[in-house]
């Protein structure tokens, strides 16, 4: 199969899921390990006797029994987990990793920032119904797990999932209404995912394994699976749900924008901020060894504190909580994939994720850029188009942007 095939020709392999999705996917991964598709699997595993999910790298298929390819919460952002493993080069064994689409998008950004190397990493994504807010999960006990189970069945539980998930329209592959090829692909090419697991097929007792590149096809072959199920039904349901989510996102952003417009109202959002920097710590895209705002540069002499206090009449300590957010925003918002990890991590429940995804949605288009879409699309931070200079630097040399007075003299 070439990467240019249309949705109509792309087909999926089908796996039965009578015991539920989690078991079906773990079953597939176990088999893949046994058949040598990869040598280890990286995925969230529930630690015994606790309720938390930790990313583990597992070689022994039996340990996958407690694994949750789609955990009810996003504890550590998958992109971040991958970068901690592959920052200094690809590991010496091949790995299969299951990621939520937002985690895969974060991974794409991190590849471009040279923090992840995907050689010999087999990325598998999965349709994502969302995740429960971390706080709710921690407090909610077994109820929370039931709620997530219902979510996997109905896919439309308002109020149960994180706010970031509620307004997420990129919960599946990037397919459109036009007759466009399914997600671009080649092993370490534009979007380096080899198999996407479709959960929105017509039959709830099945999962669809959609190969996206030759590596994915090879994996299915090794498992003795033939992709022969057409995707129309699944694609239609994804599109319908996406439309709903897009509208929710748009409406949500519009409303929020009104709430926070004007400096006073914007400041009010961050009033409760305690400067813990959790949001920066969990963000997959924030890759600096030491954040500027954690560095000694932030330490001023007592004299400077006094000077500032004198000018303003009063001084909030520690200094400049808003500056931290604006600074972080200007550094990473063009790569923000709206995963919402920041919002989950805030101990005082500031809607950080909402602010950042709103700003991301409005700033990325200025660079004709969508974070996480393609590993071939260069980061706006690192690309310089000569054509852009003429607007600001040398209007007299640029015919397009010359002022009328200059033009008339030419």
């Amino acid at each position: 199969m070439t990467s240019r095939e249309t949705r109509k020709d792309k087909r999926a392999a089908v796996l039965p899921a009578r015991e539920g999705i989690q078991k079906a996917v773990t079953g597939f991964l176990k088999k893949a390990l046994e058949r040598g598709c990869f040598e280890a699997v990286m995925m969230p595993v529930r630690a015994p006797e606790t309720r938390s999910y930790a990313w583990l790298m597992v070689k022994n298929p039996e340990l996958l029994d407690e694994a949750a390819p789609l955990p009810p919460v996003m504890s550590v952002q998958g992109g971040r987990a991958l970068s901690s493993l592959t920052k200094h080069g690809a590991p010496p064994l091949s790995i299969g990793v299951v990621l939520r689409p937002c985690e895969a998008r974060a991974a794409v950004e991190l590849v471009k920032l040279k923090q992840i190397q995907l050689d010999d990493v087999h990325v598998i994504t999965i349709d994502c119904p969302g995740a429960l807010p971390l706080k709710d999960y921690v407090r909610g006990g077994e109820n929370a797990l039931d709620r997530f189970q219902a979510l996997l069945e109905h896919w439309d539980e308002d109020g149960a999932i994180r706010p970031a998930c509620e307004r997420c329209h990129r919960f599946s592959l990037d397919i459109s209404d036009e007759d466009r090829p399914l997600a671009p692909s080649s092993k370490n090419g534009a979007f380096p995912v080899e198999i996407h697991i479709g959960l929105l097929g017509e039959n709830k007792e099945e999962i669809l394994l959609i190969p996206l590149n030759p590596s994915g096809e090879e994996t299915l072959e090794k498992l003795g699976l033939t992709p022969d199920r057409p995707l129309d039904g699944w694609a239609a349901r994804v599109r319908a749900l996406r439309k709903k989510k897009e509208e929710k996102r748009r409406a949500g952003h519009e409303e929020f924008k009104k709430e926070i417009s004007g400096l006073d109202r914007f400041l009010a959002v961050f009033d409760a901020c305690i400067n813990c920097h959790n949001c920066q710590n969990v963000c997959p895209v924030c890759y600096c060894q030491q954040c500027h705002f954690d560095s000694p540069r932030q330490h001023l002499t007592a004299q400077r504190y006094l000077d500032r206090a004198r000018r303003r009449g009063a001084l909030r300590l520690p200094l400049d909580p808003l500056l931290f957010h604006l600074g972080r925003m200007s550094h990473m918002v063009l790569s923000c994939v709206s995963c919402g990890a920041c919002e989950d991590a805030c101990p005082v429940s500031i809607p950080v994720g909402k602010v950042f995804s709103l700003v991301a949605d409005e700033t990325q288009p200025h660079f004709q850029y969508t974070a996480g879409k393609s590993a071939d699309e260069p980061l706006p931070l690192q690309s310089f188009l000569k054509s852009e200079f003429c607007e600001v630097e040398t209007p007299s040399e640029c015919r397009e942007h010359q002022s009328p007075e200059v033009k008339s003299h030419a």
Partner: protein
Amino acid sequence: MSVRIGVYVCECGPNIPDKIDIDKVLEDIAPLNNVAAAKRFRLLCSNDGKKYLADEIRKEKLTHLVVAACSPREHEKTFMQVCVEAGLNPYLFQMVNIREQCAWMIPDKAEATRMAAKHIRAGISRVALHGPLSKKELTVNPDVLIIGGGISGIEAALSLASKTRKVAIIERSDSLGGRTGKLSRLLLHQGTDVSVLREKIEKIEKDENISVLTGCEVTDIRGFLGNFEVRIESSGEEAVSRSIVVGAVVVATGCELWDGYDPAVYGAGNIDDVVTAAEFEDMIAAGKILLKNGKPPRSVALIHCVGRKEKGYCSKVCCLYALKFAHHLRDSRAPAEVYEFYSDLCLPEKTDQEYFDGAVKKGVHFLRTENVRVEKRNGHIVVEHGDGAGKKKTLEVDMAVLAPALVPPPGSEKLARMLNIPLDETGFFKEAHAMLDPVAAPIEGVYIAGCASGPKNINESVVQAQAASGKILSTLVPGKTLEPEVKISVINEDLCTGCQTCLSVCFYGAISFQAHKGVSAVNEAICRGCGSCVGSCPSGAISSRHFTYRQLYEEIFEALR
């Protein structure tokens, strides 16, 4: 060790005291922390002034110096030299401009005084955080690498080579001479053959200070003026690779005839007796102009401007060589009828008009037209052209000679990337400034001569080769030492995450990624201290040695207080 900052306010003649109450300024700053001396002097840049400062540095045992006077562009170096002579590191010095930035701009004396004090306080805050940077010295390598063995390369080599300066010419083909070497006659002195070139090549072969590497190409260049490391590989059967070190590089890669024109329009290649200028030149050199059937042509069409519209520029030399062909054809014992089809005539040199008039006198026909087509009809070559009034006319000829555009040779892009020389829209190398600096590349130590930067005739190529040589002879003096920039950037390896954003902004190629460490590093000899990388690093892992975060913060804070 305690910090003792000396602050000296210069009166600059009447310039400053007229507009600023200097005593008030001194009152304001004298009590500041770490200020050991705050004094005024009439003219610090005078000999007396410089002596006074040196004495003060020693007497007051100053650890830092601030001079408030004119612009640093005028006298920063002067006072840095004073520091050196007085035993104070010259980078523990800050110059504050209270003339252009206060006295000359602010009409109200009270306001000007206040601003001057503010500027000086800012300078004092900053200087306390300066580090004692030290200059490095490198002895330059005076040798030169010339890329390209055509007329420009040959001329440059002969101008440059000496006992104290070795020259290496590297030429892709098997022999020196380039396009000039293939000419039958040189134009300016009609009747002069190219033995002049032969003589130059022989001189080179005899010169023990010039080495000629034919069949070789440059595969890597790194470095800076006075120290370029070049890797050369030979393209023969035995691929031999070697490295040499030179102090300057001359790019003399020349040009070639464009062959991308539409054969359906111009017929070359698929119609017999439609030839390019180069092929016609070979015929002249061989001594006979003959058609495919062995007979001499009775009529020849010379087609100018092949590719001018497509390429967007005039190739300058074709009108003249077409005239050369025309004269040659008319001078023969059985002269052929000659028709020159042109869209514009380019006759810029002082002898060109005469040459043209001579061709007219000899009966050459000149037809001005756009949209020429050369086709084969009924076994004959037909030139179809517009007649200027909108109609199409045709002319039957025995032979047609095409004058195609001159274009950069293959491999130019690769070389441009290696050397960090931009190419312009036409694909030729871009000089530092087309009018004011035409033989220098934007990178110091690299020069461009001849057609490498655009179509030129031999005269211009020779001039450029000599100009580039002149520049090298005066800057790359054997035994000279270079001081690379001191106020450069430095990368903190502990903070660097290896994202390589800094590499994408460094114009000088001074930053490289160290794969084994996973971090980037600045080459101290190439860095120019522009600070682009400092600004681009999201982690703040890069700082400038003389513009640290803390220095700037304190200076700005004090200025805004």
